[in-house]
């Protein structure tokens, strides 16, 4: 009988875990154990269960500490979320890199993955510190609200604590066991620890997401907030999974961007070609992770907003067409910055290989398209104008630029920007290789056809359905646009994967041969990502308007209004700068562990 290897064990553990979760959750047919005591059954059976409505705090129930309670919670919560996102994301792609190292036998992957984890380890402590501070701040400043939340979620909070212990255990064993479990069968044990770390981390995030989504779209309770559902019904509100997916993808993009900045910094400070080559490669990998995770993010966001509209049209319009609508101009600037920086980094990176020369003619057209789309995306529809300005303009909207301000134009712009970014990435990936398969020219022709068909479809659907039909078709057409973009990305990955599987590396990349200027793109990415996360946090929280828990518990605190975009921008800047300072500390600590003081006698000698 063959001995059980760690590899087999790992596969079994994963398979059994997936099956168990599916079975117990009711996804494989049968009843979910979580729903065994449904709300209605409990209502009928347990007459002694008192249905207690949610308390309604009055102004006096909020302690006054002299500064805005919301501002305090805003800063601490956002810092916790930034670091939480980082420490959850890094192990995800680190395990991927580790698997890559195992597959290729290249130790560089392992070393890089280990170095990434070093950043995550220090950040983990900071996450926990901000998490604890946040809990204290919430209990102190919003006692009635927290009392109700504790009552609703009950023992689930303890599960959260247990998960936290588990994550800590797996994090430390994964990081400190790296060299002890580096080769052979033990490597599989190490990878299993990595998977467990991610399993605990993701579950932790899903649990805490349920608190936020319960506040936005409560479930498992009556109209007045009395708990009638079990914990699963409370957690599984209409926005839970969309937020889970959105945060899962966004975290990876964010984590990739932050470690990219680390690599960029180390590259700029490097003195030897070997160091430069290592950190150039690290920066490239980080950028790859960030952008590859970022490309599907708008689609996850689209799903989230569709679910918001389905839950409450009013909430959807408040976000997209109401008081918060201006925010999306800032979002356009941020995403435009991210895409321009990522593309610029890829174009600069082409200098690593001679083979890129054949593609350089494309770059100016890609750049032109991206810039044009960027400008369209940030064109506002409605302007606050004085009477003389309205007269000069000939109306409240500019007759040419006005139509660019509405969603159909922006949908065309954002989809084309994503397609162009993918094209940059594809050209970069092809630069050093030459396809050897016999059907290479046919494959290229097919790809070109897919690009053209998708671009034509995106523009046609946007213009025809967006401007010549009514609103119902306008919204529906964006789905075909999104599908077109996804088809380009997915088919591009598949066709290139097959075409370049055994391709000849004709022009090997010289790592380190890239301009210093290009490294600043690696700083633009995390800065814009961080600011964007903060901004999206503002809109996610603000759509609840003056409710702690939408439709159930009113916010009667002095801060129960949606702040203006300028104030929100200043708050986001404050947390971004704070995050920057703390991240520098993390980098410094990570760097400190590599240094060793020379013994005084040796130094003198």
């Amino acid at each position, binding site marked *: 009988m063959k001995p059980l290897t760690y590899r087999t064990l790992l596969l079994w553990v994963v398979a059994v875990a997936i099956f168990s979760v599916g079975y117990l959750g009711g996804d494989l047919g049968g009843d979910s154990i979580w729903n065994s005591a449904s709300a209605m059954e409990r209502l009928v059976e347990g007459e002694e269960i008192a249905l207690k409505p949610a308390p309604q705090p009055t102004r006096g129930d909020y302690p006054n500490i002299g500064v805005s309670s919301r501002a305090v919670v805003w800063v601490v919560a956002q810092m916790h979320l930034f670091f939480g996102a980082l420490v959850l994301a890094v192990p995800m792609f680190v395990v991927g890199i580790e698997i890559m190292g195992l597959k290729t036998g290249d130790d560089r992957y392992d070393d890089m993955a280990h170095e990434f984890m070093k950043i995550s380890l220090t950040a983990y402590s900071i996450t926990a510190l901000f998490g604890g501070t946040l809990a204290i701040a919430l209990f102190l400043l919003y006692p009635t609200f927290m009392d109700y939340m504790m009552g609703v979620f009950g023992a689930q909070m303890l599960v959260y604590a247990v998960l936290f212990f588990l994550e800590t255990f797996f994090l430390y064993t994964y990081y400190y066991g790296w060299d002890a479990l580096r080769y052979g069968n033990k490597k599989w044990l190490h990878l299993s620890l990595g998977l467990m770390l991610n399993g605990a981390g993701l579950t932790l995030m899903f649990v805490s997401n349920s608190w936020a989504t319960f506040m936005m779209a409560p479930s498992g309770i009556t*109209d007045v907030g009395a708990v009638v559902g079990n914990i699963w019904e409370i957690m599984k509100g209409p926005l839970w999974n969309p937020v889970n997916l959105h945060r899962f993808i966004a975290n990876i993009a964010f984590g990739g961007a932050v470690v990219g900045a680390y690599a960029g910094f180390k590259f700029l*400070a490097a003195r030897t070609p070997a160091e430069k080559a290592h950190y150039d490669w690290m920066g490239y990998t980080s950028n790859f992770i960030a952008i590859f995770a970022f490309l599907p993010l708008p689609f996850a966001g689209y799903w989230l907003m569709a679910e918001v509209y389905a839950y409450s049209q009013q909430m959807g319009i*408040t976000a997209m067409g109401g008081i918060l609508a201006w925010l999306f101009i800032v979002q356009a600037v941020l995403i435009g910055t991210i895409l321009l920086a990522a593309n610029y980094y890829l174009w600069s990176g082409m200098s690593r290989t001679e083979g890129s020369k054949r593609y350089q003619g494309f770059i100016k057209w890609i750049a032109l398209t991206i810039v044009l789309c960027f400008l369209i995306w940030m064109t506002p529809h409605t302007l606050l104008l004085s009477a003389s300005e309205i007269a000069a303009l000939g109306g409240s909207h500019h007759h040419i630029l006005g139509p660019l301000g509405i969603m159909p134009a922006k949908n065309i712009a954002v989809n084309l920007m994503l397609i162009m970014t993918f094209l940059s990435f594809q050209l970069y990936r092809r630069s050093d290789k030459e396809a050897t398969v016999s059907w290479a020219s046919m494959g290229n022709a097919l790809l070109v056809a897919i690009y053209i068909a998708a671009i034509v479809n995106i523009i046609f659907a946007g213009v025809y359905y967006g401007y010549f039909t009514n609103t119902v078709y306008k919204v529906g057409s964006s789905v075909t646009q999104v599908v077109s973009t996804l088809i380009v990305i997915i088919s591009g990955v598949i066709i290139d994967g097959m075409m370049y599987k055994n391709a000849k590396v004709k022009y090997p990349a010289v790592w380190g041969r890239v301009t210093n200027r290009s490294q600043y793109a690696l700083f633009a990415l995390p800065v814009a990502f961080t600011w964007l996360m903060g901004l999206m946090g503002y809109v996610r929280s*603000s759509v609840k308007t003056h409710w702690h828990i939408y439709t159930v518990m009113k916010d009667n605190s002095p801060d129960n209004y949606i702040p203006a975009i300028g104030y929100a921008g200043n708050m986001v800047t404050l947390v971004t700068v704070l995050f920057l300072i703390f991240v520098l500390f993390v980098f410094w600590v990570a760097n400190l562990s590599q240094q060793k003081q020379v013994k005084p006698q040796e130094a003198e000698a």
Partner: protein
Amino acid sequence: MMERNRQRGNVLLSTLGFSLGLILLFTMVANILPQVEGEAPVDSEVDLGALTMDSFVSLGEELFRGKGTCTLCHNNLGRAPDILVMNMVDTSSERLSDTRYQGGAADVEAYLRESMIDPSGYVVASFGKKGSDDTESPMPTVNKAPLNLSDIEIDAIIAFMQSKDGGEVTVALPTEAPAVAEESAAGGGAAPAESGEAAIAKYGCSACHLISGSGGDLGPDLSGIAARLDAQQLQQAITEPNAVIAEGFAVGLMPTDFANKMTVSELKMVVDLLLKQ
């Protein structure tokens, strides 16, 4: 070693400078956009004794555009029927005789009420929830959270719907229970305004008055008001609006509780700003 540290210091400074510059750019974009706060509704009482049908209709319009958030969807963007440009009395009669109508209303008033508290009773073709084949309306039930309109507030909106196109108002004026109306202006709920413009936005003055070239016409046009009233008279007009009524305007239209809601500095800032009109 010294050289290396200096190099690191330079890299740190340049990358930090670049990052901070970018952050400032984003902050600037956020600050040059129009600044609008979303105020929480604040309870205020309607003086039933002084209520006239005209002021009841005005209250309905105010609720329609404010607390009811009806104009969020009922506008010319096609998300919901643009009922401000439709004759709702005629439209209601047509719907009552439509074969698709399954509700229990017998007249226009009852239909309008039903459309607000049971919006799925009759869904206008192509405006139903996605996938519901026009059997389910995306409109919130107005007497439940988050809107929580009271019966009197719903009646006021019906009165506005009936009267806006010159129709007969059949809904009765409330006489018994005190109605709790909410205004979209914040009052004591929010932080004090920091400028006259902010205070005017906060208390929704432009909803009825033309100020700085924009606003409604329910109240007097305040352009050039400084030529007609001095600071003291303006202050009185705000805190005791019924003391002196401008010609052509009804008594009781303007809220009488600004004296309780506004801070002293807010009142002063509003008066100063109006004196510059």
